[in-house]
């Protein structure tokens, strides 16, 4: 159990590519921090730097009170779960789990006791003699987890551990990882590109983009107050709708002519963000957005509609209750919730707030 402190952590590859631009971050003891972002955003590099598999170009990394920049992975007392599990194919499940203990010179009896204990914890006790090849994907995933747990490390590192599983198993393992991590109380860093995984697992969440932290916060903070269009578009599924609009004080005028009340006091062109679930169908009115349904995706619990709105190039995604029957070509009137409108700078994509804009206007 330990806090993890990153102090200006920077990674530059020999070819000059900067993968991480100086990260400052403290991960609390027992916290599960999820790092999410598109591929190439530097999230895996960050994790590998924490693990010690990748050199740190600049800055310092502290595990507990100790600076670990120069330490080998094993000396950092971390455990890592890899995307493809990286189980040793020629060793049994028990062999895989005890390998780290064996290298540490722990006597055989104690090794066996620890392996059996861990196996019981994650439901592998009947599979200890099997080879990885004889296991299903979910079981392999469990062995990879077990291998990490049995060592009782200070920090768990997860590198997209669920992306090789099918959808149903992924949900199940997600819950299990969450439960285990809480129960063991070990600090964990979890890298994923799946925003649902990120939202459900995280105590705190980092959205990364091009080697920088775009936003850090609890999942709900990121959902409710995304700091930029990038975060807004990444968190939440289906993604937030972005509309061009013109703001004049608290009145927003859309190209289609509709007028909405803005939550912030700004002037000029803005990007308006509305989540699909925050568009409410209403009776015909001049204030409402008039849309035409282009495509319907019934998901059971919800129905998604892709609708065209005059003056916008991208179709508007709207989420309805599953009981609502929609047909392609239907005309709808939608009223967005004023409190849940997001206003962004159209050029840089950052969130505009009243305090910020009132000084400029």
């Amino acid at each position, binding site marked *: 159990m330990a806090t993890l402190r990153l102090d200006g952590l920077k990674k530059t590859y020999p070819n000059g590519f900067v993968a991480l631009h100086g990260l400052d971050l403290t991960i609390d003891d027992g916290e599960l921090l999820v790092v999410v972002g598109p591929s190439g955003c530097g999230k895996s590099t960050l994790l590998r730097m924490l693990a010690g598999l990748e050199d740190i170009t600049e800055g310092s990394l502290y595990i507990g009170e100790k600076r670990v920049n120069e330490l080998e992975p094993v000396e950092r007392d971390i455990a*890592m779960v890899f995307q493809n599990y990286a189980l040793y194919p020629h060793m049994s499940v028990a062999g895989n789990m005890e390998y780290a203990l064996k*290298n540490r010179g722990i006597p055989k009896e104690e090794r066996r006791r620890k392996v059996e204990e861990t196996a019981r914890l994650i439901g592998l006790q009947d599979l200890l003699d099997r080879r990885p090849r004889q296991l299903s994907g979910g079981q392999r995933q469990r062995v990879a987890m077990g291998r990490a747990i049995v060592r009782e490390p200070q920090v768990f590192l997860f590198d997209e551990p669920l992306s090789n599983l099918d959808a149903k198993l992924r949900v199940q393992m997600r819950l299990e990882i969450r439960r285990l991590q809480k129960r063991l109380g070990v600090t964990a860093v979890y890298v994923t590109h799946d925003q649902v995984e990120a939202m459900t697992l995280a105590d705190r969440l980092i959205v990364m983009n091009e080697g920088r932290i775009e936003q850090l916060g609890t999942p709900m903070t990121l959902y409710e107050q995304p700091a930029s269009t990038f975060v807004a578009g990444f968190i939440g599924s289906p993604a937030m709708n972005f509309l061009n609009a013109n703001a004049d004080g608290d009145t927003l005028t859309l190209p289609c002519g509709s007028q909405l009340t803005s939550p912030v006091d700004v002037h000029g062109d803005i990007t308006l963000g509305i989540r699909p679930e925050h568009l409410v169908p209403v009776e015909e009115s001049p204030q409402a957005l008039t849309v035409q349904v282009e495509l319907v995706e019934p998901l059971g619990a919800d129905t998604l509609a892709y609708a065209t709105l005059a003056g916008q190039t991208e179709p508007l995604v709207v989420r309805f209750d599953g009981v609502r029957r929609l047909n392609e070509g239907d005309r709808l009137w939608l009223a967005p919730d004023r409190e849940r409108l997001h206003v962004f700078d159209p050029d840089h994509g950052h969130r505009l707030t009243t305090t910020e804009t009132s000084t400029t206007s």
Partner: protein
Amino acid sequence: MRYRRPGLDITSHTLLILCVIVFFLPVWMAIVAATHTQSSLYTGTAPLWFGSEGLGNFLAVLSDPVSRLGTDATRLLLNSTIMALGIAVGKITIAILAAYAIVFFRFPMRMLCFWAIFITLMLPVEVRIMPTYKVVADLGMLNSYSGLILPLIASATATFLFRQFYLTVPPELLEAARVDGAGPWRFLRDILLPLSKTNIAALFVIMFLYGWNQYLWPLLITTESDYMTVVISLKRMLTSADNLVPWHTVTATTLLAMLPPIIVIVLMQRYFVKGLVDTEK
């Protein structure tokens, strides 16, 4: 895809049986000849059935010094075995270590080393035989096991094969081992060697046969019969200026010389299969 055509079956079986006969007939004749006395082999017709001696000729060459060689076949077989084993084990050991260094370590001029090794593929013993002989002679290794083994011990082919195999090992495996606290030697011993069991078995067979069948090199550097290999001895037995060729002895020795390679193949084949079944990449 398999075709079922009775006509094709018969043709292919006939063909295969014919080939087996063609290839096996000389072996059969050797087996038969080894059971005859020398005089019964010189009656004008080659016998096709066993003679009066039974296993007598085999026991004779194994225990008594063979004429014109001054040593018995046991010693010859032992020399050949030591040489073949030395070459096979040495080649595999060196190849594993060289490939391990090239694939898993980052050191200056790594690729240069690889290409230097690779280029030696173009230099088999026959090409460099004179300089090699000079070196071995100067080191005083003529008529010794080390002289027989060392010049043949480095293998670019095996290094290359191991390199190709190591490149297919997922890098995460190395990383997992590092996180688990395995240093370079542990990783080699605990992860890489067990995974390359199949390759090692296959190469062992090939290299053992290569070592066993060496002719030119042992011929050059062994002048004493104590270090003569069995392959060389066969040639020696045949070169007789004045006497009749002792065919019964020659065939018996030939058959004995064939045995170890067969044993190696049969034994290692079981390892092949086991390795194939047990490991997974």
